[in-house]
């Protein structure tokens, strides 16, 4: 038997990758997306026929793979980590029965036909499912993944190379006490979905696991698939020997010996266990993020080695984890936000919730933060939203929150308007697929409306995801959500700025900048904000102003001492003139309404709303977003109407209009040409004027989505 001894020293992580920010990546065309974990896709002309009726750009399948990540080659197809994790007598079928090498060869033949058939049906990218960290089986009974390893050499025709030298029980993620880390805990002797076996979490830094991951990906690529969906892509909590060794290299690359002694109390600090927020925890998490990014890169490289072209890497793990998007996923192709739970489900649109007698209350769902945050990073990654009516929701509730034809259109419109190249999940449903088809046709026919652009905004919200680790109190992300809601309801065009983007040059583009409950701020960012305000900008600070720097140290003077009079921070709302500009300090932002916009307009002395005229509660749910072609007087204006009722009782949208847009579009000084598009309607020229330095455009009516291209003459 050949045994592969893998060197423990892996690539040195790019610990010092802090230098110049990368060149901004411009927008791409949005795409359509279907997730289908069904088990019956191979040898099925009916399935290919169904997909061909409305093929999405991206089709995400379950474990339709030759070698599953968790069991090796098995009988079952489809599903994710949980599904089909047992065999007789614990299930009605032998789902995890190991396929013989001959059966595996046949499986590859079938999967090649599937991939080829789906491409011919019109799908651009087909990505089956793998997981970043799961294996199943039993080490003593040599079941599951262990059974496969014991037969490794029989699968030599599949280019698996030599069998890893160590037992997988040594690859597990471990806690500081050396005990295995279980992300999905269970009681008793087995993990219920894997009865009678155990679900283990493996360390992505272990070279043996990375090697196996590369082998499964190579075999997936050989089938003709275009990439992989990688579940649990942010799950690493390991303190194993490999992690500890890589960590020391990492931390020594980030701080001098003196700094380590001063900041962490040791020249060789151990990783934090996360019980205390602070710099050591932040660095531990950054190290793990870098490790996971490296793991994803290994997947991309493995696929590309086989196909000779870019291999799509599509991790899951964006939901409520902007810090991971920033540190793990910026160079992935796509990032999934698995938004399963919300007070009114998570499908975008308007919920009409019965209160009493005939009275209903309107609630709105949107995913603007998710799409826009990823777009504003201006990196390779593009956002994907998974939304649901909720988990375990009673039937009566589900009926109120379910997706319908109009809200499916809204979902695709939202991805297009805010994602800079994003996608919105739909399931295989013939009617919904026809809506999706309309949008895909539109995106592909009018790709120029979406590609190669940068967002154009009047305001900016500073988003510092690392505060999740530095202060750990969750106030900043909540306040960012409130600022987002206020700006959207007030029709203010805005960007998010991460730490690297808080520079004097960037800030100068905005009429107002919002610092929402920020506890830690670096000196250079504070200085950029000071210069911005002195030059005439409006800075809105909510909550207690920052007291710490980015290393968690409390400087002699608070970071914004030059901008904020301490006497004002005890008041609910205070404004101060600083140089030519203004600071507004507010105790808190309201969750709803557009109070923030009132403060900005009061301080700036001008209107920043992109919609002119009288406001109504329904009108406030018309959201506007604008992109600009860099260096050109060409803008693309997106308008999305969220007054689209959710639920099985398809009531149709509450059409809004007429709406008068009022936009500051630099470079346009005389009446521009404006053309209005609607994926579900007609194109038309519309008239535009310049008044008081702003471009005025009248939109007669807005059903769900309109795109207006404005070009200066």
């Amino acid at each position, binding site marked *: 038997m050949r045994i592969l001894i893998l060197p423990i020293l892996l690539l040195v992580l790019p610990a010092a990758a802090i230098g110049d920010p990368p060149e901004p990546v411009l927008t791409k065309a949005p795409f359509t997306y279907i997730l289908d974990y069904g088990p019956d896709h191979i040898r099925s002309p009916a399935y290919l026929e169904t997909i061909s009726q409305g093929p999405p750009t991206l089709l995400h399948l379950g474990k339709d793979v030759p070698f599953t990540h968790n069991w090796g080659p098995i009988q079952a197809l489809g599903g994710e980590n949980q599904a089909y994790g047992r065999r007789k007598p614990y299930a009605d079928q032998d789902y995890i029965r190991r396929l013989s090498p001959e059966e595996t060869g046949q499986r590859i033949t079938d999967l090649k036909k599937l991939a080829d058939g789906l491409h011919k049906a019109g799908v651009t990218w087909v990505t089956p499912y793998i997981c970043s960290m799961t294996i199943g089986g039993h080490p003593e009974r040599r079941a599951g993944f262990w059974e496969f390893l014991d037969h490794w050499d029989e699968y030599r025709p599949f280019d698996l190379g030599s069998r890893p030298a160590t037992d997988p029980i040594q690859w597990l993620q471990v806690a500081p006490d050396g005990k295995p880390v279980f992300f999905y805990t269970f009681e008793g002797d087995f993990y219920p979905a894997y009865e009678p076996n155990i679900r283990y979490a493996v360390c992505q830094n272990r070279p043996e696991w990375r090697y196996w991951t590369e082998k499964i990906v190579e075999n997936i690529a050989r089938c003709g698939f275009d990439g992989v969906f990688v579940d649990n892509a942010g799950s690493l909590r390991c303190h194993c020997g490999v992690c500890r060794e890589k960590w020391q290299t990492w931390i020594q690359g980030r701080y001098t010996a003196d700094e380590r002694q001063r900041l962490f109390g040791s020249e060789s600090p151990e990783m934090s266990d996360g019980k205390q927020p602070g710099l050591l925890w932040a660095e531990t998490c950054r190290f793990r993020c870098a490790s996971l990014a490296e793991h994803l890169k290994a997947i991309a490289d493995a696929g590309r080695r086989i196909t000779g072209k870019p291999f799509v890497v599509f991790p899951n793990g964006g939901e409520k984890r902007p810090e991971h998007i920033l540190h793990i996923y910026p160079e992935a192709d796509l990032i999934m936000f698995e938004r399963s739970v919300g007070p009114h489900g998570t499908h975008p649109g308007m919920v*009409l*919730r*019965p*209160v*009493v*007698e*005939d*009275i*209903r*209350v*309107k609630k709105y769902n949107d995913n603007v933060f998710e799409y826009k945050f990823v777009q504003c990073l201006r990196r390779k990654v593009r956002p994907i939203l998974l939304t649901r009516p909720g988990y375990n929701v009673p039937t*009566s*509730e589900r009926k109120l929150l379910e997706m319908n034809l109009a809200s499916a259109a809204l979902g695709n419109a939202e991805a297009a308007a805010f994602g800079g190249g994003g996608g919105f999940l739909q399931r295989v449903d013939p009617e919904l697929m026809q809506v999706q088809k309309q949008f895909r046709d539109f995106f592909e026919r009018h790709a120029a409306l979406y590609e190669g652009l940068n967002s154009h905004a009047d305001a900016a919200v500073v988003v510092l995801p690392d505060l999740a680790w530095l202060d750990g*109190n969750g*106030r900043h992300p909540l306040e960012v959500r409130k600022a987002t809601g206020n700006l959207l309801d007030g029709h203010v065009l805005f960007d998010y700025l991460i730490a690297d983007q808080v520079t004097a040059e960037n800030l100068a583009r905005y009429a107002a900048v919002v610092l929402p409950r920020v506890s830690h701020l670096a000196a250079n960012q504070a200085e950029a904000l000071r210069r911005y305000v*002195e030059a005439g900008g409006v800075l809105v600070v909510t*909550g207690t102003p920052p007291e710490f720097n980015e290393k968690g140290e409390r400087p002699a003077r608070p970071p914004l001492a*030059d*901008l*904020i*009079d301490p*006497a*004002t921070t005890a*008041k*609910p*709302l*205070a*404004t*101060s*003139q*600083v*140089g030519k500009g203004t600071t507004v300090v507010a*105790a*808190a932002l*309201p*969750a*709803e*309404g557009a*109070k923030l916009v009132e403060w900005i307009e009061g301080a700036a002395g001008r209107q920043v709303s992109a919609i002119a005229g009288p406001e109504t*509660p329904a009108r406030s749910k018309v959201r506007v977003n604008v992109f600009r072609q860099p260096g050109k007087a060409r803008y693309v204006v997106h308008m999305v109407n969220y007054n689209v009722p959710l639920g099985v009782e398809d009531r149709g949208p509450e059409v809004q209009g007429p709406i008068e847009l009022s936009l500051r579009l630099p470079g346009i000084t005389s009446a521009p040409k404006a053309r209005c598009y609607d994926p579900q309607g007609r194109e038309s020229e519309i008239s535009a004027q310049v008044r008081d330095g702003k471009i005025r455009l009248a939109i007669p009516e807005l059903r769900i989505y309109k795109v207006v291209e404005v070009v200066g003459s």
Partner: protein
Amino acid sequence: MTIHASVVPVVFLALAAHTLSPQAADESPVLRKANYLAILPGGGPQRQVSLKAQQVSPAYSDALNFTLIGPDSSTITAGEVLLGEERLLSIPGKPEGLHVLELDSGWNACRVDPRGIPSAMVARETVPLHTARGAKQLFFYVPRGCKQFSVWLVADAPREGARIEIAGPDGGKVVEEEGDYDKPQRVRATVPAGCDGKVWSLALVKPKAGGLNVDDVVLWLDPALPPYLSMREDWALTFGKRKGDGVNGVLE
């Protein structure tokens, strides 16, 4: 550098932060999360209800957000009350008919005083009442012909529970029950002869058994009763009879 500070005047009455003020005569119990007050403005001149936002802990910053919804489900007005403040909200006399005031205090708390406008808290399974620190006395209507009804309770925080006291039309206690109510639990009441078609009341107090406190309690009435809990007996009658009387006239 010089900083010229000007503090924007606060137009509302300031209350002491971090304290929960004593309950006024018609005032609601302390409310948390989302609650709905049904209001009958009555077609007369404009009147006002009072809203008070109270901070439960310095850890929470949620202000009170309110939305007044008209009989046709349209939003009449919406806004917020900052923590520690009181705001008088105008309720237009017209349109006539049932209005609903949504009160969302998030993790903090609020109280509403209808100041004489007939009103009732909505308490049904899909729109339950979220109270904190107990409730002194809330009135509800038991329709004619009703022989039995249930009140449902949940108090799922650790070391929290409730004692519920249900009193009949004469004020005599019909049911007294207490528990930790970590999961939704029904408290059944049998209606004695002659006690239907009348107004009853309930109160939530600290359990007598040691170790449990009364704080966050979610409460709703089962479909045998109109889904309204009022701060005044006469209002309970008004709301209870809105859809006619008798068990067949009971709301959805």
